[in-house]
């Protein structure tokens, strides 16, 4: 399909980065066109970051404000770190999408609207008394109305598809327009359509045709006088693919199992926003991945413990309410000293809370939320691609120290995506498991002198038959023991073992200068927002640096010293101050907080404003 395109003089502006938001009814295929747009930007060599934002209801009433689904993407040259704060271009499929998103739009931005969807009934559902595309209320924006329904129907009038089905292709019409605006290639989406609809060739052809028609419409129509080109990102050479945080975590688990030459067992119960890990792994069961959809969260945790006892790399994933159900069994995992990875994709809580929205509010549950003295390792991922690195590190620590490790991700990371450079085998960390002594010298609770890990001997290994359980055991032999001194010794040993994980933590990397007025301490998904804000603040001359903590428990050993080199410490978090509480108790430091509990990610503007406020108050 290499037809010649007409040349027209359009104003091509070169941008360093751009932010686009797609919005429409949850039935409009917004997530689909959003992710196709993201792929195309990646293939074109942009760095990118995405944020899907969808309603909890699968199908809220059509056309209502509650049913609006969104997908935001930032892409461009720099290291794009967040999905942007406010979009430069907002594409809306209906009036409700406009009503919901207009407040986040800077004046002067572009609004592209499916004008056919602005019927009196739809306007009323969205709460408009008159049509905003016509009544002048959007005069501060550049509004481009596209009759997408009419154009889609026209493009498909000879396709033989029934009208209702033809109309469903309209999202590809709008996508075609967006591809033209940003000079992006149609090829990857064409290929994707072919694969996706390979069972119905007519639907595939229709979508491809409409995509092309949208692109042509934008190219030939005078109303589009602007075209943007983003600078390519100077990324490291290598093979890349676009991954969401959940996919990255799933691939990390497979990778860890391969490095250990073990099966991966993943036992999980469906829960938003963690289910995609389960879905991704379910596709790989031919690759020594045993995926078990459990009857409940407790079974998910317990089957994982069973598989770990069985000598496999065992993992489970969940979100906050599910982690609460898992904690009793996590106590067993801690006392039985079995290795496993527990991924908590945090969402707005408590209870059902905001199931599709993001938060960082499970930190204290992960660190402390168990009965008894029950230490385990907690790590936090900082970006979608970092979900790979962090989950892989979690598995490495789990097997080296024979301990459960919780990985904190969240809705923002799990659904967001960014290019992931596929590592070479040689670049991956080495996994180390304490060697088993000979059967005669084996005791289930003897310890590796360096790591304090107990030996991992699993059913099937001849000569190592032994019994473990939830009762306290005698040091070494593992026999049931109610001896008071032994319990205290074992409690201390379990704590000391987890404390020794600090040996795995590299020196804290400081973004900026090693000392100064203000240190911003972040963890998890706020990495992009904090780093962007600090970059900008430093450009504006403020004395500010930042660090980002992956090791939540145990904390990096040099953290106290690093913080002491700054006069003030600011901890931005999507909770009411949980890391702050941890830092206070560990280091007797009283950091300032920037706390957001809105189910939406902290953005760099908010962090920047706070940095300025703190430093101007000096």
């Amino acid at each position: 399909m290499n037809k010649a395109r007409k040349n027209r003089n359009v104003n091509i502006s070169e941008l360093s980065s751009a932010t686009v938001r797609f919005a429409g009814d949850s039935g409009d295929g917004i997530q689909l066109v959003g992710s196709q747009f993201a792929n195309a930007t990646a293939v074109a060599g942009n760095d990118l970051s995405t944020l899907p934002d969808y309603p909890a209801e699968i199908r809220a009433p059509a056309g209502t404000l509650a049913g609006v689904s969104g997908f935001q993407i930032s892409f461009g040259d720099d290291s794009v770190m967040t999905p942007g704060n406010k979009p430069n271009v907002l594409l809306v499929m209906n009036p409700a999408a406009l009503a919901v998103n207009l407040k986040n739009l800077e004046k002067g931005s572009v609004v592209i609207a499916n004008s056919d969807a602005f019927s009196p009934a739809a306007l009323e559902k969205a709460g408009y008394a008159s049509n905003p595309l016509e009544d002048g209320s959007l005069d501060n924006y550049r509004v481009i109305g596209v009759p997408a329904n009419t154009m889609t129907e026209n493009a498909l009038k000879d396709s033989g598809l029934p009208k209702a089905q033809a109309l469903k292709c309209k999202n590809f019409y709008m996508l075609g327009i967006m591809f033209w605006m940003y000079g992006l290639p149609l090829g990857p989406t064409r290929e994707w359509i072919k694969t996706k609809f390979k069972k119905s060739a007519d639907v595939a052809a229709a979508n491809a045709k409409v995509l092309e028609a949208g692109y042509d419409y934008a190219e030939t129509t005078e109303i589009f006088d602007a075209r943007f080109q983003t600078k390519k990102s100077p990324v490291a050479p290598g093979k890349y693919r676009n991954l969401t945080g959940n996919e990255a975590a799933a691939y990390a688990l497979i990778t860890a199992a391969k490095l250990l030459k073990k099966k991966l067992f993943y036992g999980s119960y469906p829960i938003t926003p963690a289910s995609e890990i389960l879905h991704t792994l379910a596709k790989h069961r031919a690759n020594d991945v045993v995926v078990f959809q459990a009857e409940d969260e407790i079974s998910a945790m317990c089957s994982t413990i069973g598989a770990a006892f069985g000598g496999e790399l065992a993992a489970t994933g969940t979100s906050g309410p599910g982690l609460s159900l898992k904690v009793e069994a996590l106590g067993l995992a801690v006392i039985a000293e079995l290795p496993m990875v527990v991924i908590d994709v945090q969402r707005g809580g408590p209870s059902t809370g905001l199931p599709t929205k993001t938060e960082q509010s499970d930190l204290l549950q992960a660190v402390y939320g168990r009965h008894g003295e029950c230490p385990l390792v907690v790590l936090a991922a900082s970006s979608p691609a970092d979900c790979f690195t962090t989950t892989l590190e979690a598995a490495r620590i789990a097997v080296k120290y024979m301990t459960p490790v919780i990985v904190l991700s969240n809705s923002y990371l799990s659904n967001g995506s960014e290019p992931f450079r596929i590592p070479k085998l040689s670049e991956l960390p080495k996994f180390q498991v304490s060697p088993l002594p000979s059967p005669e010298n084996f005791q289930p609770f003897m310890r590796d002198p360096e790591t304090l890990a107990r030996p991992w001997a699993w059913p099937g290994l001849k000569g190592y038959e032994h019994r473990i359980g939830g009762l306290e055991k005698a040091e070494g032999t593992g026999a049931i023991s109610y001896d008071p001194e032994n319990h205290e010794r074992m409690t201390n040993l379990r704590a000391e073992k987890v404390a020794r994980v600090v040996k795995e933590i590299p020196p804290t990397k400081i973004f900026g200068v090693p000392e100064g007025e203000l240190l911003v301490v972040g963890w998890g998904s706020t990495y992009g927002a904090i780093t962007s804000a600090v970059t900008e603040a430093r450009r504006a001359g403020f004395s500010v640096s930042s660090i980002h903590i992956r090791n939540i428990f145990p904390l990096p050993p040099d953290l106290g010293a690093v913080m002491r080199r700054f006069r003030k410490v600011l901890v931005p978090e999507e909770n009411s101050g949980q890391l702050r509480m941890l830092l206070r108790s560990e280091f007797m430091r009283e950091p300032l907080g920037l706390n957001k509990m809105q189910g939406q990610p902290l953005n760099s503007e908010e962090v920047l404003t706070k940095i300025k406020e703190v430093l101007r108050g000096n």
Partner: protein
Amino acid sequence: MENTKLTAKDFSSNLPVKWCPGCGDFAILNMIQKTLAGMGLPHEKYAVVSGIGCSSRFPYYVNTYGFHSIHGRAPAIATGLKLSNPDLSVWVITGDGDGLSIGGNHMLHAIRRNIGLKIVLFNNRIYALTKGQASPTTQPGTRTKTTPLGSIDYPFIPARFAVGLDCTFVARGIDTDIAGTSAILERAAGHNGTTFVEILQKCVPFSDKEFDPLKDPAAREDVLLRVAHGKPLVFGRDRNKGIAFRNFRPEIVEFSGKVPDEIAVYDETNAEMAYLISGFTQPELPLPVGVFRATRKPSFEELYYDQVKAVGDTRGHELETLLAGPDAWEIK
């Protein structure tokens, strides 16, 4: 291959057994150790998983791999172990409280999946480890610490619960009936898919009178119905009583001489018959023991690994290829 034949003694760990004197658990322990020895697998291929309760101390006394876990969760832990290591013989030891109350959901889903677990449920109709509270099998009217005026809960019949879930092997035995219960365990050992064996057993301190009618080996034959595949449902010391189903209702028919035609012949492959039989309660009807249901249906792990085979083994693929997936791009 292991050539030396193992005996029950080989499956005894050297730990002191800590059940109360007179507890039926001792007899069950001996029977299971004997059953394991008879299975012919090497030691290391067995795993015994339990929850919490008196019965759940069991793994400590069996010289194999064992896991004494947490209350109610043994079927879930055993499922993870069996699914990832299908070659192991995985036994779940549980009780009426552990398996049917706090762990009811795991029990029902393990059975639903037909995963290859050998589940043995010790039914003493009481919470014994916590010293005498009513359990889901405590009989109506029973006075316990939590039911001082008599229990008003309708109890479960464990075997019927399993039959109702279409469990592929369901049986009931009695701790004091060594021959009958050993035969059941031996058949369970050879079954593929979930096996559910309920063993009735009194608790000396807390439900001592529970199975008094079953105490005397001769007298108990008047109240026990020994169910056997292909055999008529006949019972009584003098083998002179039988069960006839009239309009699907069981009725006791007394006879002398030849077994009358209307006495039902038991068919363990018949789910409906198993349902009727497992619902028999004393004193209206004799208490059935034996194998109620035995049928063959692919196990969860068989279906799982067959599916894996069907999609084609990709284990040999390079990790980098796997990570790249179908839509990677290259930046030079």
